């Protein structure tokens, strides 16, 4: 579903602190499967994630999404594709403080101009699915870590994306909550979503729900 060929990414290019995060990546992410990118910090997995999810562009190489080359698209179209295809769950959750959970969930769909009732209904469904219905109107800074993550997941799903991307989802969770997260993963896979994660948590890497593990080190694939 997603193909990357010859991906290289550099930061501070041309300057003395030039740093190559990715040094030639070729992978294909299968649809409706759960794929995990494993590797130590500095291996480039977060960078790879942002390129797959159209949050940034590679310095070299091509990205194909469902056989369409999206590497060269202008920002406008890229954002449109990103919004429709990908849902992101950040490591730090990155929820907007001061807003209620349901407002945070609806946020990514604001630019789409859906009728308010419909959008709100969708958000409430997602919160209910993740067992957060009772926290609908609570401000997100008052929620626990696990609850915040579930709000972040609901937010990632509001535009009904095909691909869910999560960066180190269990990094801030204890074992119990991590297992809960794996349960959510199962649910997503059952719904036919494609999931891409980064993690160095053995609990995730060795979980049964994971279909494929790709190892990264120093910006290259090692598995």
């Amino acid at each position, binding site marked *: 579903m997603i193909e990357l060929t010859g991906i290289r990414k550099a930061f501070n290019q041309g300057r003395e602190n030039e740093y190559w995060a990715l040094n030639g990546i070729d992978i294909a992410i299968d649809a409706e499967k759960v794929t995990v990118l494993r590797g130590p910090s500095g291996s480039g997995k977060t960078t790879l994630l942002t390129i797959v999810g159209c949050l940034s562009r590679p310095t070299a190489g091509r990205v194909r999404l469902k056989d369409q080359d999206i590497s060269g698209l202008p920002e406008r179209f890229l954002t449109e594709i990103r919004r429709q295809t990908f849902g992101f769950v950040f490591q730090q959750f990155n929820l907007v403080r001061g807003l*209620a959970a349901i407002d945070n969930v609806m946020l990514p769909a604001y630019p789409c101009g859906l009728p*308010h009732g419909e959008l*709100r209904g969708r958000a409430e469904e997602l919160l209910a699915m993740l067992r957060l219905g009772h926290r609908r*109107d*609570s401000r997100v800074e008052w929620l626990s870590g696990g609850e915040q993550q579930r709000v972040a997941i609901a937010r990632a799903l509001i535009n009904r994306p095909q691909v869910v991307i999560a960066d180190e989802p269990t990094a801030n969770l204890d074992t119990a909550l991590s297992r809960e997260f794996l349960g959510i993963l199962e649910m997503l896979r059952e719904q036919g979503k494609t999931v891409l994660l980064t993690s160095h948590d053995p609990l995730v890497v060795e979980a049964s729900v994971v279909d494929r593990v790709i190892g990264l080190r120093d910006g290259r694939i090692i598995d």
Partner: protein
Amino acid sequence: MKPPGNRAGNAAFALLAVALAAFAATWLDAAVSRDRAAARTAANRELVAALELTDLCLFTEARYTRHPSQADLHTAFQDHPRALEHFPSGSLLPPPAILTEHHGRLGR
């Protein structure tokens, strides 16, 4: 906490609606009081003609602030040739147009 359908934006619309209503009210008021104001202005103009008045009674501090249209180049310096303006209203009134336009005999 927040009842559904109570969007934050609605508060802004409510405020704007009030503000717009107040704004519209001023135009309405101006239109409504136009006739009464016209009658008053007509009556005052008749008084001006009847009494042969030459100025509005705005500032009663000095001769040239009370009757600015009658002032000449010298009245502002009536006390002393180098007297500075000491009436605040002098800063609100420019010298009469005739003085700044042409200077005939006697420095009109």
